[in-house]
Structure formats: C-alpha cells, structure tokens
C-alpha cells in the first residue's frame, strides 16, 4: 500500500541558498508525523512545496502514489489535503459556524446547488459536530474576529477538518495557544486522528506538544533531514541537540 504522502528528493533553492536540499520521506495512513528543526532550517519552505504554494526546484510530491508536484493548493484541497496556518487565517467577519460551513461548502454539490441549494450546503450537522469536538459550540454565533487568539486557532484547526480531509498539514498549531487550551487542542487532534482516520503532518516548535502528539518525528537542519524516528529517539539524537544548540 502506497503512503498517503511522499516527498522524493525535494530541492528548493533561492539563488545560492538551498532552503530544501534533497528531502525524502513518506507518511503512512493515520500517522501523525512531526517536523521539527531550528529557525531557518527549511521547514516552512518544505511545507510550501508540499502544499503547492511554491514549486520545488526539483523532486516530486506524491499523494496516494500519484504525482501532484506543482498542483495548486485549491486542487490539492479538492483531493483531500487540508491545512492550518501559522498566522491566523479565519474569516473575521463571518460567524464561527459560517467559517466552518465555508471550509467545506466547495466540496459539496455542483454549480446549480451552489446557487440554489441549502444555505448551509448540508453541512450544518458537520459544523455542529466539529464545534462540539473543538469546544466551540458556545461561540457558534460569534464573529470569528471577536474570538481570542487560542479560540481562533481551534477554529482554524476545526475548519481544516470540515472537508473530511485524508491529510492535514498543521503549521505551528500550538503557537500562541495558552497551556490550558493546548492540552484540549492536542486531545482534539488525537480524536480526529482516531475517529476520522486523518493523517497529520505537524510543523511545531513546541517540543512537548510534538513529542506527546506525534507517532514519528523528523528533524530538519540546513534543508536536510538529520533525524527520523520515534519522538524519544529524535529528542535524544546528538545531531538534533547540536542543531538546536548551534554547536
């Protein structure tokens, strides 16, 4: 069985800077893969290559064994790839519920149904369920822009699951979230992984969050993978420690 996501010899150069320098890895179904690395190591560039937001200089990205290199993010979204954002990207003047419905509505029905179909696109139940899972039910009618930063992070994550994705890429989901919310957030992600069978790739600087959530971790430094293994193994890897401490 082919992996859900596979990167093969990905390179991305900016002039003489090799931001991504020959990265290869595969993510199995239902796996939660953590991607760590010091600032400037190439994590975000790798993410952008995987998501079609920038084209790799060379190498390939495969989704379920199919080459999707260079496909636009919206096309990847239609193929079941969803993402959250490092910086908040909810729609501030829509309610929490509207944000959730919006995140899934383009996957439901054709042009005629979009114009004349039910306003909630038949996603009202799914939105309610997602709000329940991410503890947002009491905020349903509030404008997303009026929520706290942590609540908006939860909403951003919940939106990523509205289209029933197979693969979700989470970009620093724990950034700026307070400790109380963070624990609940981790549990929600675990639940989504178990219940919906979604596969995750998580970029994160919060080591405790990564180590307690992910089933496998890769560490990137200077555009290359320097460690790949179980969270405990990677944490103890001398090369990883050196990359972080800058020795």
């Amino acid at each position, binding site marked *: 069985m082919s992996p859900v996501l596979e990167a093969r010899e990905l390179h991305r150069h900016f002039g003489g800077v090799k931001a991504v320098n020959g990265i290869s890895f595969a993510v199995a179904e239902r796996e939660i893969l953590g991607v760590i690395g010091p600032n400037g190591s190439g994590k975000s560039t790798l993410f952008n290559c995987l998501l079609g937001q920038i084209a790799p200089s060379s190498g390939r990205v495969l989704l379920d064994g199919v080459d999707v290199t260079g496909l636009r*993010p*919206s096309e990847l979204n239609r193929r079941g790839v969803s993402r959250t954002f490092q910086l908040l990207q909810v*729609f501030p*003047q*829509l309610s929490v519920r509207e944000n959730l419905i*919006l995140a899934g*509505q383009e996957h439901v029905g054709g042009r005629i149904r*979009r*114009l004349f179909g039910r306003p909630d696109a038949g996603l009202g139940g799914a939105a309610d369920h997602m709000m329940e899972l991410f503890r947002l039910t009491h905020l349903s009618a509030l404008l997303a822009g009026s929520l706290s930063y942590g609540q908006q992070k939860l909403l951003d994550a919940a939106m990523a699951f509205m289209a029933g994705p197979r693969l979700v890429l989470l970009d620093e989901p724990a950034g700026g979230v307070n400790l109380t919310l963070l624990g609940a957030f981790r549990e929600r992600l675990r639940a989504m992984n178990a219940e919906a069978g979604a596969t995750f790739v998580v970029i994160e600087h919060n080591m405790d969050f990564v180590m307690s959530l992910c089933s496998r971790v890769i560490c990137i430094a200077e555009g290359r993978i320097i460690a790949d293994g179980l969270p405990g193994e990677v944490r103890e890897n001398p090369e990883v420690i050196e990359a972080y401490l800058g020795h």
Partner: protein
Amino acid sequence: MAALIAQLLISGLATGAVYALVAIGFSLLWQGAQTVNFAQGDFVTLPAFLILAGTALGLPFWAALLAAMVLAAAILGLLFKRILVDPMLRHGAMPLTIATMALSIFLENAMKNAASAEAYPFPGLNGGITLGPLFLDWQSIMVLGVAVVAVVALTLFLSRTRTGRAIQATAQNPAVARLLGIDVGRMVLITFLINAVLVTIAAALISPIYLVKFDNGAQIGLSAFCAAIVGGFNQVRGAVAGGLLLGVTEMFAATYGPDQYRAAVPMVLLIVFILFRPQGILGRAEERRV
C-alpha cells in the same frame, strides 16, 4: 414645523436611499477588487440613457429597465472588469483608481457625443398622498420602497446563500478563500454584476428627479463616495447608513442654509467624519501591526 421636518426627513431619506444603492456598489467593489471606482456616478447615468433608449425604441418601461440592466451587467460589470480592472489591478490599486477617473471622463464625453448636452425627462410617478399636514409624493415612496427591497434582497443574498458567503470570504481573505476551493475570480465578477444591477436601479429611481444629463454622474458619484466613507467603507450596512445620513443632511442644509452650497454638503460631512470618526458610522477601526 414638525410637519416640515417630517417632510424633509422623508424627502432626504428618499434621496439618501439612492445614494445608499450607489454607495453599496462602492463598498462591494472595494471589498471584491480593492477598486475605488471614480466612474461610479457615470455608471448611474449610462443605464438611465439605456432605459431612455429602450423606451424610445418602443419598449414598455419595465422591459426597457430589464434590457438596461442586462446591458449594464455586460458593459459595467463584465467588460469593465475584463478590460480595465483585471489588467490594471496587476499594477496596484492606485493605477486602477486613476484609470477609473479616465473612464469617468471617457463615459461622460461618450454620452455627451451620443445624446448631446441636453437634460432629458425621465418617466416617474406623479401625485402623492396627503396624510394630515404631510404630503408624501409617490416618487419618494417608491424610491424608498424599492431601495429597501434591493438592500434587503442583497443582504439576504450575501448572508443566507452559499454564493453570498463565498463572496464575503473572497472580500475578507482572497488567498485563503482560493485555498478552500472558492472560485475567487467568479465571486469578484458576481460582485461587479451586482454593482451593475444596483446602479441601474439607482438610475431608474433618481432620474425622474434629476433628469438625465451626461454629467449627472459627477455629483451622484461624489455624494455616494462620501456616503460610503461616512458609513464605514467596508460594509453594506455602513453604506446604507451613510447614504441615508447624507440624503437627510443635504435636504436640511438646502432648506435651512444657502442652496448654492448644497453641493458641498457631502464633502463637509466627509471632512467631519474623517476628523472625528474616521472609521465611519458602522465601520471598524482597523489595526495594523508594525
């Protein structure tokens, strides 16, 4: 005295309702394509001429109105977007804004060449109803009624339909909307088409009062632009509030002040708001991180 004030209020609200329709167009184009359309006033004049042309060809008024709406959607919606907005927006909002000024000059001169500088009468409703000391003319009542229906319909469309929600998302964050699979280009086009329909309705409502003349657009456009800013540029409700406030203010200023300064009222109101409430009546103060 009370009757006069009520009378002025109703007349002001009727004029303001037309400003509101045109101001909504300003807001929609700003949200959809970061376009400040300085030809918006001329966008009101052109459909008025189209309606007159339709009636001159023997069409009944309602058919001429519908035909004008379709033509306006094609010219002021589709062509405007494809020929001017799309190519110019690649160079930034400012070149596009300047291009709309050029378009305004072009449209005015084209209409003058085609229809002369004469002011043409436009069919409207005569008479009215007397309620105690108040006389309500049918034209003002119809203007208010149609404007209310148009605004309510637009609001329901934007808030209660999938397409409306996608238009709002496109206005708020086009990059993420695109990522979610929304056809951003189509949503922006729909926004332009909505604007074309709104200006055609505004043309039919205001032309019986101002007649149809090639350069009417300058004043209507300026008033609606001020109304949109006074209301809060980034939302439909704000444009409505700004339009109504401006209409009423103009009416009272013209009655109790020197009439020759009436044209300055929108700018004075604009300056007052910029000084004391720059985000407008219903607008939100926007934060910027530096």
